[in-house]
């Protein structure tokens, strides 16, 4: 087990394309660390540089205390998992698990020991003699995961391994990965563009944009206080409402009469944007104290919650998360009020968090 340090990483391709502008990361030993960002943000290139599959233009990578810049992938003692490929259909579970170890040329005795250990950890003992067609979908994923893990490397690097699974299996496998990583305690770096996956898996998340790290934090830190407007709109669904505000009489005032509590230390003479999560707003009956008048543009009943889209004369519709028992309908005249804590505030010109 080892932590991973990435310092001043820069990657430029011969054609001039810059995949990684500047990335610094300090991944702790035993951490499940997620790199999140849209396609082209540099997350996969950074991961591949850690694995040694891509040579950086400049910058250093350390695994544990070893500088690995000049080491080939095989000597870095890490396991790269691209996807949970399907199991070999003609092999029993035990041979599916043993396959990567035999391919590495390990002695058969050690192969058997490692398979037994992985099987115990993943509770596969009862399934060892079955072939894939006699396993349920969830069981197949557990076997696939165990097969990726029998090698016991210093760290696992995973590049969107769940992409090809359907929604149901993806959610199940996510749960299994997180549980297993907690049990093994092996450092894991996990790349995804899916914010739900990033939030639910990671101990910490790095959000990348245009080859730079915009924020590193725990899931709740990046959710509650996104470091930039980019992070604010990338994390959370529906995304944060971004409301242009002015400071007057000790409050943040948005268009349409909306009033928000101001954080301390606001800069002067800047155009400010407050970030308000849909659950920090509330739909009320029209005329309720502290509310502004609004109209329901649409009501999206998602089963365990309703997302209201409201027009409060502020130029831009706002999204509000309400419990499924709320009974407002499209075109209703309603009230809208703030029901959360102090919102994070951004400078519109730099797009960065200022208070």
């Amino acid at each position, binding site marked *: 087990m080892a932590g991973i340090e990435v310092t001043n990483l820069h990657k430029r391709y011969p054609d001039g394309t810059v995949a990684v502008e500047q990335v610094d990361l300090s991944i702790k030993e035993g951490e499940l660390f997620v790199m999140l960002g849209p396609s082209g943000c540099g997350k996969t290139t950074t991961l591949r540089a850690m694995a040694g599959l891509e040579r950086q233009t400049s910058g250093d990578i350390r695994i544990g205390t070893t500088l690995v810049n000049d080491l080939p992938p095989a000597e870095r003692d890490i396991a790269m998992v691209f996807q949970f490929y399907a199991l070999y259909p003609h092999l029993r579970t035990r041979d599916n698990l043993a396959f990567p170890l035999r391919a590495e040329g390990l002695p058969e005795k050690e192969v058997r020991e490692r398979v037994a250990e992985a099987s115990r950890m993943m509770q596969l003992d009862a399934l060892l003699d079955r072939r894939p067609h006699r396993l349920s979908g969830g069981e197949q994923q557990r076997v696939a995961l165990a097969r990726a893990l029998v090698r016991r490397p210093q760290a696992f690097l995973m590049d969107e391994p769940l992409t090809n699974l*359907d929604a149901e299996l993806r959610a199940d496998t996510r*749960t299994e990965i997180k549980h297993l990583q907690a049990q093994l305690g092996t450092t894991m770096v996990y790349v995804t563009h899916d914010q739900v996956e990033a939030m639910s898996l990671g101990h910490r998340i790095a959000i990348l944009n245009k080859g730079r790290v915009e924020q590193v934090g725990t899931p709740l830190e990046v959710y509650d206080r996104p470091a930039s407007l980019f992070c604010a709109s990338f994390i959370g669904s529906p995304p944060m409402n971004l409301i242009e505000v002015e400071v007057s009489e000790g409050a943040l005032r948005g268009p349409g009469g909306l009033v928000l509590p101001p954080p301390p230390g606001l800069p002067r003479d800047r155009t400010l944007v407050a970030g308000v999560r849909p659950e920090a707003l509330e739909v009320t009956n029209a005329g309720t104290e502290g509310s502004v008048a609004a109209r329901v543009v649409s009501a999206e009943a998602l*089963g365990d919650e309703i*997302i209201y889209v409201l027009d409060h004369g502020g130029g831009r519709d706002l999204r509000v998360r309400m419990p499924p028992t709320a009974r407002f309908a499209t075109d209703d005249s309603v009230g809208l009020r703030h029901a959360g804590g102090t919102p994070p505030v951004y400078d519109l010109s730099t797009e960065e968090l200022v208070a």
Partner: protein
Amino acid sequence: MGTVAAHGLRKSFGEVQALDGVTLDVPDGSFYVVLGPSGAGKTTTLRAIAGLEQLDEGSVHLDGRDATADTPAARDLAMVFQSYALYPRKTAYENIASPLRARRASSTEISEAVTKVSGLLHIERLLQRRPAQMSGGEMQRVALARALVRRPRAFLMDEPLTNLDLKLRVEMRTELTRIHRSLGGTFVYVTNDQVEALSMADRVAVLREGKVQQVGTPTEVYERPANQWVAGFVGSPRISLLACRAEGDRLVGEQGWTLPRPRWTTARDGHPLMLGLRAEDLSVETRSEASLPGELYGLEPLGDRTVVDVKVGEEMVKVKARPAVSGTPGERLSVAVDLDRAHLFDAETGLALSAPGR
């Protein structure tokens, strides 16, 4: 008028029975969503309605008239596909105008219709651009505008938002409901995304393996799923299902737990059942007489809530909790169950046992 009805559609491709007796009644002016996983027969159903698929059996009625033998053009339906299929050399304006030109509309009519629909979709500033100069989201809007520029009998849409990123998809969901309301036409919309279905539909038909499982409003499908499969397909996180039997005034789980038996349970004692529990009807933060003993398996923070994974014996239960809930894997805990909101299914047929009053 714009009613669309499909009666007993059957269609096989070789060995595969794609449609196995699909019947749908789409009311005039409704936003009707056909929801199902890939391979359910959604697209085949839509293509059959459009006249693009030869049926083995069954009929399609448009505005009450049998249109099974009509050509696609004679059916007067507009289709929007997942791929945008815009003419690459034409401007957005010309792309949108093309269905009207094909019908020899006058240039005044065309200009009025294009202006109106591009206002509705907020694409006025794109009209002189060609597809290569637009983003994916912009192209999808132009493709939608091209379908919406006419006033056909109904609009058929095949997963039009699939290729957009999450943020755009959320925005387009709202846009589509708004457009549907201002246009007032009949929308038949196919998707595998249950969030899309719940958020946009007046009515949802849930399809699986070529058979309709349930038709209802989004709330009905979520709160009163007709069978175990629908319960599992609709809702995220997925409903937790626990094997059990009724015994006297108790429900006894295969994993050793017991709960009070809901009074409405009609099942015979000893008959195998599945108890379905939605994450929001469970709690690890309150106490209750009705509770399941378990062990913390993991925490999945989502920002506005955290999903707590709890192992109850060998079975997994997902519980909705506050964002900042904490716990250590392996820790024993008790999951409070709101039995008034629980679902019971016959484990042999998968069918829901009726729950009166809901």
